[in-house]
């Protein structure tokens, strides 16, 4: 790097190091420390925190978290693509309406939106009353405080993060490609499968990474809709810092989680790209 480009980059580097690198290093550093009975950090090196992660309790929660995040991402993808596609078929005014409709929830406090689900899902809630009134069920269903409720809340929360990138990639796609494909004998369905879907991979990629990463880090939804039974790794981490006062262990869990998230994103990237490459090579 020459002197001039360093000058240009300096503010960015400073900003990043202040808000990103230094806190990260601090977390990594603390994760190798110990604590005393009062919750103070004891400044002696130890690997115990990392060893503790492999206890069945934490491993179980870790896998639950990954699984829930994968499910959330998949459901978001399946629900968002048709919506985004439908939006692009509308006129400019209707498109604007939908875009505003999708972003409106962002203006309302996230906690309030999540609590609203309690009103809908609880035993005497709107959904149960409705189902009992029309006689579909005689006993109220237990919907709140289940894994399903957490999944529902997550999907609800993160759908906009998936819809918007897919919508953008659909909008940016060269529509003449569809004419070309139709001209070459493809039905609408096959044009979609062979042209539209591959052409919007980048949007699906971006959306999936956004949803996956934010889901893994989200603990509020699990807290509110999942009750005591469903815990995510972020709930544990939060608890180590605020409740259990075990900062070193909380830090170790954070470090593990950051690394595993990076690995998963990397694998995801790789999988998408290699499915491209292998299809190329198969024809070669």
């Amino acid at each position: 790097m020459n002197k001039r480009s360093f000058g240009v980059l300096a503010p960015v580097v400073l900003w990043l190091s202040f808000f990103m690198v230094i806190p990260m290093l601090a977390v990594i550093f603390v994760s190798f420390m110990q604590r005393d009975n009062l919750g103070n950090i004891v400044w002696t090196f130890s690997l115990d925190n990392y060893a503790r992660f492999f206890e069945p309790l934490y491993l179980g929660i870790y896998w639950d978290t990954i699984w829930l995040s994968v499910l959330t991402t998949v459901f978001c993808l399946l629900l968002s693509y048709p919506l985004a596609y439908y939006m692009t078929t509308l006129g400019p005014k209707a498109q604007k309406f939908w875009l505003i409709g999708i972003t409106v929830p962002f203006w309302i406090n996230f906690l309030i939106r999540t609590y609203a689900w309690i009103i809908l899902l609880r035993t005497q809630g709107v959904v149960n009353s409705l189902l009992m009134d029309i006689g579909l069920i005689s006993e109220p269903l237990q919907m709140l405080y289940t894994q399903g409720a957490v999944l529902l809340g997550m999907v609800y929360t993160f759908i906009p993060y998936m819809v918007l990138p897919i919508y953008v990639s659909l909008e940016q796609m060269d529509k003449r490609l569809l004419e070309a494909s139709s001209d070459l004998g493809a039905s609408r369905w096959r044009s979609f499968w062979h042209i539209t879907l591959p052409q919007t991979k980048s949007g699906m990629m971006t959306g999936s990474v956004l949803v996956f990463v934010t889901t893994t880090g989200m603990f509020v939804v699990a807290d509110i809709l999942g009750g005591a039974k469903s815990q995510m790794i972020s709930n544990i981490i939060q608890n180590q810092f605020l409740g259990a006062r075990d900062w070193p262990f909380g830090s170790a869990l954070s470090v593990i989680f950051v690394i595993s998230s990076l690995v998963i994103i990397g694998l995801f990237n790789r999988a998408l790209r290699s499915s491209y490459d292998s299809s190329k090579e198969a024809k070669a």
Partner: protein
Amino acid sequence: MTLSTDNGKGLMLMIRLENVEKHFAGQPVVHPLSLTIDEGEFLTLLGPSGCGKTTILRMIAGFEQPTTGIIRLDGEDVTQLPPNKRNLNLVFQHYALFPHMTVEQNIQFGLKMKKVPAKEQRERIDEAIRLTQLTALAKRYPHQLSGGQQQRVAIARAIANKPKVLLLDEPLGALDLQLRKNLQAELKQLQRSLGITFVYVTHDQEEAMMMSDRIVIMNTGKVEQIGSPRDVYERPETLFAATFIGENNIFHEERLFTVRPEKVRVTPELADTRKTGIIQDIVYLGNVHKLVIHLENEPTSVTSVLDFTDQRDWSIGQKVGVHWNLQDEVTVGR
């Protein structure tokens, strides 16, 4: 105006447009048009942008529905058929190659959609690649190709399907002049060797003259004239046709007539000539030597292309006589 139905060569009809008309939002963009195109013919739709030529092409391809009228392809009424059910292919103006497929996969796409057996797919891909000289580039992606190469891929992708008709929408429009010239010759050659009907859209009159069997000259949604390059050049029927193709001198006397610059003779003697005037400009382009003469007592100028053996000295401001033969006057309509 002639709406030619038969060029007298006894060839089979490939495309027939019967009173085809197209309106967009109530505005006519193509006025009622009847036209037949023979098997193996190279027909060009020529006109300035917005004249409706691309709309006609898109109606033949199936991307637009005529407001009224019938389109027949090889005898079959295809007016209501979607593009993927018509046995013809379009080469798009900006090629519309699939970015996520290699050259080979692009060419294969149409064959795959039509479920051509794998072995035949291979043969047809190879043939298309050979005909368009793309052998070395078969495994490349479109973004790795130059404009001219992408153009070849677009043509290969279309001809691999062995369409009855190949439609080309300004296929050379995005290329520079030298490449255009080379590809014009190549395309014409390809059309002859394949024997497929070509319907070609362009706004470049020189390109149309060089490649076509017949030219349809269009302006503001109406057909001005249909004829061979020689017909439309020597016998223009309308003022638009007379001025859009080549250079022309317009005379508006008791009737409207035109005289091509190469038919106009200039003499230093002023007696016994049709008109007299003053040389306003001398244009020397190497192979062409032109004089622009401002006529006396008339508000018009006349251009004369000199014989290339002409060695006389001309100077601006010189008074000259202008002459032409009566049979070189072409009466045109408005």
